[in-house]
């Protein structure tokens, strides 16, 4: 039973972090920009959303969308620092991350005590039976809150995925891909690749903030330290997802990233089962990440060898 509960919890967490991972997919995989400011924009989104909901009484869904823009602005600052002032990618991320520590703290001061509000995961079962009828209603009526949370998250994550997929098929999206692939080409098309870098990093951090907002909705609380370790977590999700699932032909990169985030969160949760005191949690976490990278390296060389054999048989 404990195992089951852990799995459910892991799924909820994983889908929440999938939005973050999708953002980091834009910055890391597409733009080739290891962006550390994500560590700061994740709690920024959380605190913005919480303040908007508790202080201003803005509906949860709108608050989540608005927090996207908070991340967008912070990300644009990271991009500008790198593009306009030639600060290295890592350092511009660190600068913004550090600055955001204070920003989030200041925003937290606005929240003096706990309050009541409706999160996007609040719902009543009667409302649901109104939408669904017959067998589905009976099924959903019995389903507890956990499943509904997963369903809502799933809808959210798929929406974000579809938006990113569509965006990457536009001309602007092509330019973003080209910027990560070959900056020189973007220049020779008569465009300033700096603009696209700033845009990409801004979007990535927007999604990171959105993920933070979802996270505070999920647990009905805001935690100022929720940002620590998010870069590693997101990178691990992206790398696992791309490494394991991208080899399967019909799975798009974005889907692979979502699956990666879910798997990574599940693994993290199972580690808690192993190490109940939580002392070795980070160590186990690091070992797991290392193992996945090693495994990835092995399978890559394996497929390379075998595809060569196959090519020899079929071609020419």
């Amino acid at each position: 039973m404990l195992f089951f509960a852990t799995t459910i919890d892991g799924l909820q967490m994983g889908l929440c972090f999938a939005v973050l991972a999708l953002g980091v997919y834009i910055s890391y995989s597409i733009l080739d920009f290891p962006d550390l400011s994500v560590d700061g924009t994740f709690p920024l989104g959380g605190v913005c959303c919480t303040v908007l909901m508790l202080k201003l009484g803005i509906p949860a869904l709108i608050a989540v969308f608005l927090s996207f823009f908070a991340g967008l602005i912070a990300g644009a600052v990271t991009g500008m620092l790198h593009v306009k002032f030639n600060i290295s990618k890592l350092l511009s991320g660190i600068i913004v991350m550090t600055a955001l520590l204070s920003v989030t703290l200041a925003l937290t001061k606005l929240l003096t005590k706990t309050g009541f509000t409706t999160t996007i995961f609040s719902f009543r079962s009667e409302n649901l039976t109104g939408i669904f009828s017959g067998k589905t209603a009976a099924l959903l009526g019995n389903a507890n809150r956990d499943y509904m949370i997963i369903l809502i998250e799933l809808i959210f994550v798929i929406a974000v995925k579809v938006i990113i997929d569509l965006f990457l098929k536009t001309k602007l999206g092509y330019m973003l891909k080209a910027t990560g692939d070959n900056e020189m080409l973007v220049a020779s098309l008569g465009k300033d690749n700096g603009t696209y870098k700033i845009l990409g990093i801004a979007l990535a951090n927007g999604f990171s903030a959105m993920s933070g907002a979802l996270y505070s909705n999920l647990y009905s609380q805001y935690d100022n330290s929720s940002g620590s370790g998010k870069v590693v977590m997101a990178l691990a999700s992206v790398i696992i997802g791309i490494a394991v699932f991208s080899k399967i032909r019909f799975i798009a990169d974005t889907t692979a990233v979502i699956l990666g985030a879910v798997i990574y969160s599940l693994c993290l949760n199972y580690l808690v089962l192993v190490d109940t005191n939580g002392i070795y949690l980070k160590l186990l976490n690091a070992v797991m990440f290392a193992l996945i990278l090693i495994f990835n390296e092995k399978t890559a060389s394996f497929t390379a060898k075998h595809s060569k054999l196959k090519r020899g048989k079929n071609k020419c």
Partner: protein
Amino acid sequence: MLELKNVSKIYNPGTVTELCLFDNFNFTVKGGEFVSVVGSNGSGKTSMLNIICGSIPVSDGRVLIDGKNVNTLPEFKRYRMIGRVYQNPSAGTCPNMTILENMSLADNKGKRFGLSFGVNNARKEFYRSQLSSLGLGLEDKLDVKLGALSGGQRQAVSLLMATMTPIDFLILDEHTAALDPKTAEIIMELTDKVIKEKNLTAIMVTHNLRYAVEYGTRLVMMDKGNIILDKQGEEKQNVKVDDILDIFNKISIECGN
């Protein structure tokens, strides 16, 4: 028309490694000319191209395109008038994008890259016909990633992409140097064909003296930041590879190697 007027270029000014490459360098390319530039390493051929494209700033002097001073224009804005093919075949294309996506990128040069779909299916036939003119069978591989192609194929696509939209100048920066002799020959013939078909003004830097002699309407030889040979028109037609090789040898002896 392209003019370099009294251009000076000093590398690492004020340090012990200070190197004055160009001192009052003047060079004019008229519209419709196809200039082959030869010269030993370090003679300033690539530096000249970089100065024209704005990849490196000039220390003094002016770069004029059609009489307009472009000194203050950043590199990417100059590329709106210039197409460039690099020595490295992967420099002119996106290796992780498909041929179709690359072609659409090039096709939209000079337009806005907004939120409309990147690939216009109505243009597919046009891309196919362009690719089939290369004669490499690439028209059936629209969905193959550029990185999976050979260097020669990539360079052919680069050439196509650089010349797809109307440009004022085509800059060829040793674009056959990284290819095997046979592929280099194919690419060189393609280049000549494209330049003639589209009536482009081109500057080609090459180390292959035969290409420099066989192709182009004008031949320029550079040494230590100076033009030491400039043949055009009929004079150019009568130049032999051996003549140039002789001059090359003389320069080398002066240099002491």
